[in-house]
């Protein structure tokens, strides 16, 4: 980066402002309290930051979504509470907190109540490894990516708990759908990140981001053939993982009311809601990290780059919601197992290929391979028409 030194200094200062702030606080504390307290304080500061960040993100994501959907549907969206409806999430929060907490009579009460609490935990835990900016990763685990995948997979269990604990058949159906969907999409998602791991030779999110630096910090993985395919797959799987449209079968209103959170209301519902939005955010963040270079980017501070990329991906998710109709169950599963899974495997192969040959030929080869495999897979996945049903009494 050939920038004037002053500019660079300024940029660094802005870039590392949060980090430096934490450093100052800890420095201050170390003079007062014993060392282990400082360690704890470091953890607590990061934790508090994350814990605050989570609900805030959730609140304003809902607003963003409502606004965007509104725009898509040619209306305004919330615009009464505060300017542009900015206070709407707070109002909603108040409403949520004050609502009656209903527990069904035959519910498995402990589990019923535990589920919304448990579901927030993994959602928050994944924030630990999200690189918000340069040196802004809460815990720089060397298995960060694996940690992320592992922890996000726990999400199924609270959903099960909720669906089971409610003693409601729609809940149960929703839970089972969720479980099936999440397990299915976890597989292509995990496999789609394998090329990234291969190329960056690390599981650490930080290192992955760093390996995407280059001229103008723009050597993002999405600009490689395997990267673009992997990104698309990953992003689709991410949409499915957080049960968002068009993969929102677990909570399909027209089919099973609201899926696993049918019986939830008030704060418990808010928690589920929050977990969902936090998951969406983290998944978009991870997608940005893995394929879009994370906080890498010219000129602007790293965290702005990161949040900007994440924001764009979230907008795309919302755009999906506004655009696509819902999948059918068998199409959903078939899409994961019969289309995405083979494509990820081919993607891994292509990644290996691209690693060993020059960039241009790599593009040509991968283009050929992808078109052929795409064509083959589409041919093999011809839409399956269910047998026409006969209704003998219809006439």
């Amino acid at each position: 980066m050939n920038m004037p030194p002053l500019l660079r200094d300024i940029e660094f200062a802005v870039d590392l402002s949060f980090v430096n702030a934490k450093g100052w606080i800890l420095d201050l504390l170390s003079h007062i309290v014993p060392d282990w307290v400082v360690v704890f304080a470091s953890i607590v500061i990061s934790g508090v930051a994350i814990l605050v960040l989570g609900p805030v993100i959730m609140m304003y994501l809902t607003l963003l979504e409502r606004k965007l959907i509104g725009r898509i549907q040619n209306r305004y969206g919330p615009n009464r509470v505060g300017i542009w409806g900015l206070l709407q999430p707070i109002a909603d929060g108040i409403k949520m907190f004050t609502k009656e907490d209903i527990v069904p009579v035959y519910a498995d009460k402990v589990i019923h109540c535990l589920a919304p609490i448990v579901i927030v935990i993994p959602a928050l835990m994944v924030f630990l490894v999200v690189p918000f900016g340069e040196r802004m990763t809460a815990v720089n685990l060397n298995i960060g990516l694996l940690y992320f995948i592992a922890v996000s997979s726990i999400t199924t269990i609270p959903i099960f708990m909720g669906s089971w604990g409610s003693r409601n058949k729609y809940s149960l159906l929703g839970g089972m759908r969720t479980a099936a969907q999440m397990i299915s999409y976890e597989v292509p998602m995990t496999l789609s990140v394998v090329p990234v791991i291969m190329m960056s030779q690390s599981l650490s999110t930080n290192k992955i981001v760093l390996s995407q630096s280059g001229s103008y910090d723009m050597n993002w993985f999405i600009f490689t053939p395997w990267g673009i395919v992997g990104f698309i797959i990953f992003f689709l799987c991410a949409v499915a993982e957080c049960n968002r449209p068009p993969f929102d079968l677990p909570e399909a209103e027209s089919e099973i009311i609201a899926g696993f959170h049918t019986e939830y209301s008030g704060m418990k519902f808010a928690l589920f809601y929050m977990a969902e939005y936090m998951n969406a955010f983290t998944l978009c963040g991870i997608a940005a990290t893995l394929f879009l270079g994370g906080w890498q980017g010219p000129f602007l501070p790293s965290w702005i780059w990161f949040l900007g990329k994440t924001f764009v991906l979230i907008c795309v998710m919302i755009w999906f919601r506004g655009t696509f109709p819902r999948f059918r169950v068998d199409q959903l599963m078939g899409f994961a197992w019969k289309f995405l899974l083979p494509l990820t495997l081919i993607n891994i192969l292509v990644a290996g290929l691209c690693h060993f040959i020059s960039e241009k030929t790599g593009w040509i080869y991968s283009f050929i391979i992808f078109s052929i495999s795409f064509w083959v897979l589409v041919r093999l996945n011809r839409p399956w028409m269910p047998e026409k049903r006969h209704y003998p009494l219809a006439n």
Partner: protein
Amino acid sequence: MDMLSLIIKFGIYGTMALALIAAIAVVTLRNLFHSALCLAAVLIATAMIYAAFHADFLAAAQILLYVGAVMTLIIFAIMLTEQLGSKTIRQTNRQNLAALAGLLVFVVILGRVIFKTPWPVTEKALASKVTVMELGKAFMGPYVFPFEVISIILIAALLGAVVIAKKDR
């Protein structure tokens, strides 16, 4: 940092206790779903213990595979097979006392053995730290054959499970 290690130590013991309690809950709870959730707790606790032993990769894999996949499968199976009102059905068979007695003897014997055996604990081993890279190299190096075997077993199990669980036509 003595304090830190003390906290970690107690944290480990606490995790162990939690795991044991959850394990006992697993085998004694009547509601199988609760058992399964307790198992999840045990697994997570175990994963934490792994992490404490610097087996990060294993911990993550434990969570990913066990909690993410196996538990889901088990809960799935429970949901498919369990009638909702099955809480009241006796969940243990008649040989629990005999089993308990046998286990007691077993625990006593093995406990004695464990305590009596001089374990060859080496400092070098204690100091070593295994990275994911090394694990991967080990997989691709000396353990490549078992690794492939395991992959074949997994595929076989996948197909087998599909075939078995498929509805008869």
